[in-house]
């Protein structure tokens, strides 16, 4: 084990893979050459349409130990991951590496395949039950958690070689062109499948809505697809998209959102040309949009663009003219899907254009302010979004570390969740280093990273409750007390990878509880 620049202990090697310890958020440069998929010729794809998923799988020649990938735009309504892995298990395959861009509670059945040795480990992201299984040491190899941009980088750079990419497609033609704009399982944006389609040895498009050639826009190009097959349903529309994304009704969370919007106003961001922002679809983020919208309306400010997660509140702002463009990474509700389909100012993006650290297309640094959540933040502004204070691995990174490229990165969080203090002396797991986190907004005060003297200066004259993060920590811990530390085994069960491929922290196995 060696310490990385944050002092977290990192194994030098794990499962035969040499690890590079994290050196700082922007210390890694490019170099080397991108990975490349095999060359196909015209006779190889005369007819891509397979009669069934079984035929498509068999046409790929999957063997023990191979790597298969999935995207998560169908979220908790996704049928495809379970469907495909069940079929791989039926074929007696073992030791597969799963590379999903995220997993959800609906993917709990995967745990059985982990226990049976069908899946050796997961690289990418995992939430809820599968994360819990990982914490208990059920995977035979260490998992790797990457951000959306980090996943793109790992695939592009050849850290992962995907043998077969399975792409669930709400609308596709027999040639493999597909998108998520329409069909019974419409999910809107489909950008997280881009890297898979570009770099996998074989790509299978699975759809429940086969259209005559050409399906357009071809978000995933047929030119990158080997096989296409039909199934009854790729997902449950009710769960793919939440019909109603809702603003939080908690007065405390509304207050946090209001402070966040006033912060944006008070530091003068709205007075600068080409204002832009990114905020997610959680309750606080949606309330932030409401307060921000009110302020922008009052001041006659129009944002040049907003980076989605699109949702109906963001779309309302676009349609009202408060935003000129939505650059969308995923659609959180049906209004977002409809807007993406119909509005030319609602643009589909992918991690290549917006998140990946090893591209010339990462526009995240152009975003003026990014609003994020987190499970813990420490007095050095390090943030944890992966584990809970009790040590359980329960969340993926999502786009979190990629959004920290914003010119100002803001964390919004309540000071306490129940009895649990959100601010600690040292986070359980570091997902993002304090050097990229600029401000924390809580209901009891706003703390600015002391490294950002410029922001502190711009806050002069604001009536927001500005405090130090130490003061906020004292307020939280003064009420709650300090939580006991989790009881770990020695074994590292997951690596938290920084955007550039270095390891920023590890997650250790939890002792089985009696």
């Amino acid at each position, binding site marked *: 084990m060696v310490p990385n620049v944050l002092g977290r202990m990192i194994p030098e090697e794990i499962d035969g893979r040499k690890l590079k310890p994290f050196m700082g958020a922007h210390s890694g440069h490019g170099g080397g050459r991108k990975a490349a998929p095999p060359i196909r010729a015209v006779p190889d794809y005369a007819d891509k349409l397979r009669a069934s998923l079984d035929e498509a799988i068999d046409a790929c020649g999957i063997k023990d130990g191979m790597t298969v990938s999935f995207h998560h735009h169908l979220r908790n309504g996704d049928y495809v991951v379970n469907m495909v892995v069940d079929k791989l298990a039926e074929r007696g395959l073992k030791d597969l590496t799963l590379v999903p861009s995220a997993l959800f509670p609906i993917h709990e059945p995967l745990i059985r395949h982990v226990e049976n040795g069908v899946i050796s480990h997961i690289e990418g992201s995992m939430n809820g039950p599968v994360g819990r299984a990982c914490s208990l040491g059920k995977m035979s190899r260490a998992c790797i958690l990457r951000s959306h941009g980090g996943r793109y980088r790992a695939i592009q750079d050849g850290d992962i070689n995907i043998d077969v990419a399975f792409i669930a497609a709400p609308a596709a033609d027999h040639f493999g062109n597909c998108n998520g704009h329409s069909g019974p399982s419409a999910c809107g944006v489909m950008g997280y499948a881009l890297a898979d389609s570009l770099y996998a040895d074989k790509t299978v498009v699975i759809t429940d809505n086969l259209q005559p050639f050409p399906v357009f826009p071809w978000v995933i190009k047929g030119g990158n697809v080997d096989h296409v097959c039909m199934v009854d349903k790729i997902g449950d529309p009710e769960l793919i998209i939440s019909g109603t994304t809702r603003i939080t009704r908690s*007065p*405390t969370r*509304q*207050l946090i959102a209001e402070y966040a919007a006033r912060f944006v106003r008070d530091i003068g961001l709205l007075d600068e040309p080409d204002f832009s922002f990114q905020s997610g679809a959680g309750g606080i983020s949606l309330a932030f949009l409401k307060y921000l919208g009110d302020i922008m309306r009052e001041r006659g400010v129009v944002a040049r663009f907003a980076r989605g997660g699109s949702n109906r509140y963001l779309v309302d702002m676009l349609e009202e003219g408060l935003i000129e463009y939505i650059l969308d990474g995923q659609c959180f509700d049906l209004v977002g899907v409809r807007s993406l389909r119909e509005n030319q100012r609602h643009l589909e993006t992918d991690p290549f254009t917006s998140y990946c650290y090893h591209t010339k297309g990462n526009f995240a640094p152009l975003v003026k302010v990014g609003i994020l959540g987190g499970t813990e933040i420490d007095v050095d502004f390090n943030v944890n979004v992966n584990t809970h*204070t*009790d040590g359980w691995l329960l969340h993926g990174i999502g786009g979190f570390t990629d959004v920290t490229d914003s010119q100002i990165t803001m964390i919004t969080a309540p000071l306490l969740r*129940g*009895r*649990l203090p959100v601010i600690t002396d040292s986070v359980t797991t570091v997902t993002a280093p304090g050097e990229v986190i600029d401000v924390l907004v809580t*209901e*009891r005060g706003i703390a600015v990273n002391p490294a950002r003297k410029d922001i502190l200066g711009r806050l002069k004259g604001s*009536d927001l409750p500005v405090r130090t993060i130490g003061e906020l920590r004292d*307020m939280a811990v*003064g*009420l*709650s*007390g300090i*939580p*006991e530390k*989790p009881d770990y085994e020695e074994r590292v069960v997951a690596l938290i990878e920084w955007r550039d491929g270095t390891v920023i922290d590890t997650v250790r196995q939890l002792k089985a*509880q009696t």
Partner: protein
Amino acid sequence: MSDSVKTRAGREGKKGDLAVRLTEKDAGGIEISVESSVGHMFGQQIEKTVRETLERLGLENCEIAIDDMGAFDYVIMARIEAAARRLRKIEGPGCIPDRKVDYGPPRRERLRRTRLYMPGNNPDLMRNGGLYGADSVILDLEDSVSPGEKDAARILVRNTLLSIDYFDCERIVRINPLSTEYGSDDLEMVVPYGVDTILVPKCESAEDVKAVEKIIAGLEKKHSLGYEVLIMPLIETAKGILNAYETGAASDRVVALCFGAEDFTADIGAERTKEGTESFTARSMLVLGAKAAGVQVIDTVFSDVQDEEGLVANTEEAMALGFEGKGVIHPAQIAPIHAVFSPAPERIEYAKKVVAAIEKARSEGSGVATIGSKMIDAPIETRARKILRLAEALGLLEEEKNEMNGKTGGGS
């Protein structure tokens, strides 16, 4: 004593609260069992708090079972004390948490545009009450607490006053009327522990105020408080309205008279309407009584939390009648009410002109000032100065003050 002496306290399965089962025994020391949603992170701390609380309450032999949903220590202490007091008489003041914030003595003069009501038996709601910018918070022991929980709520309110930072908010506790069995116990439990103002419901006469004052004064002396706790009578009956002036003038501690529409309409046998026609005369009379007594006057709550337009109209009417604030039942009501009670820029501008004209006239030795053709007399000056005081308190004059400081080099 037999093992069968058992009590319960707290609210089971409620976030931020806990349920306590307590059994006193003849011997065997303290036996603790803790179930907690945060047990693996706070189990030891909870057990320590439970043990210390029981010891401080003088329970040496007992069995206690805690079912916790992430309650903070001061809540755990309050629920155990409630269970213990239900078990038997507790000698001494109880298990009182350390005081976390020192606010200084109550302030008579302050804005009271909004008073946010919070149910006194709900720790989770009370905890964040000071964050939303209300001028006052009301920890309620009366209507929002069921008769069976009055004893537990007053302990929780005491612990909350000592443990939670309400920043600049006035801390008001609404007690039960002294005519009930709860009223004087409420006072005893909260007066010594950091309350600014006692809200006295169903206040009908000067005698009602004096009776409360007598108990408060006794407690101040007993606990050597060194300051006077204030009184805010809540007028919510026909008789109360008719005696408003006497009630307001009954004690120097009275800072404001408040109107309670729900009980008032019941008392006069009318239906409560959104327009409030049934209480129009009463509210006007209350304003007269309060102003005659030289105290503030505060209107009732607006019950429809969703209807912001209605709230604003209702508040504008209250302001037009002479009220200086309203009760608030949800944080979302605070900002709209403050907006109504903040003087509009034109009014501030005019008030400044009035004061400038008067001062100019005085400096020239003339008693009469005019703006254009309008003569400025004493009431106009009084109103103008009041608006400027309010504007200053709300920070609406700050900009000019800075400018002036700039010009005069900070001197004046």
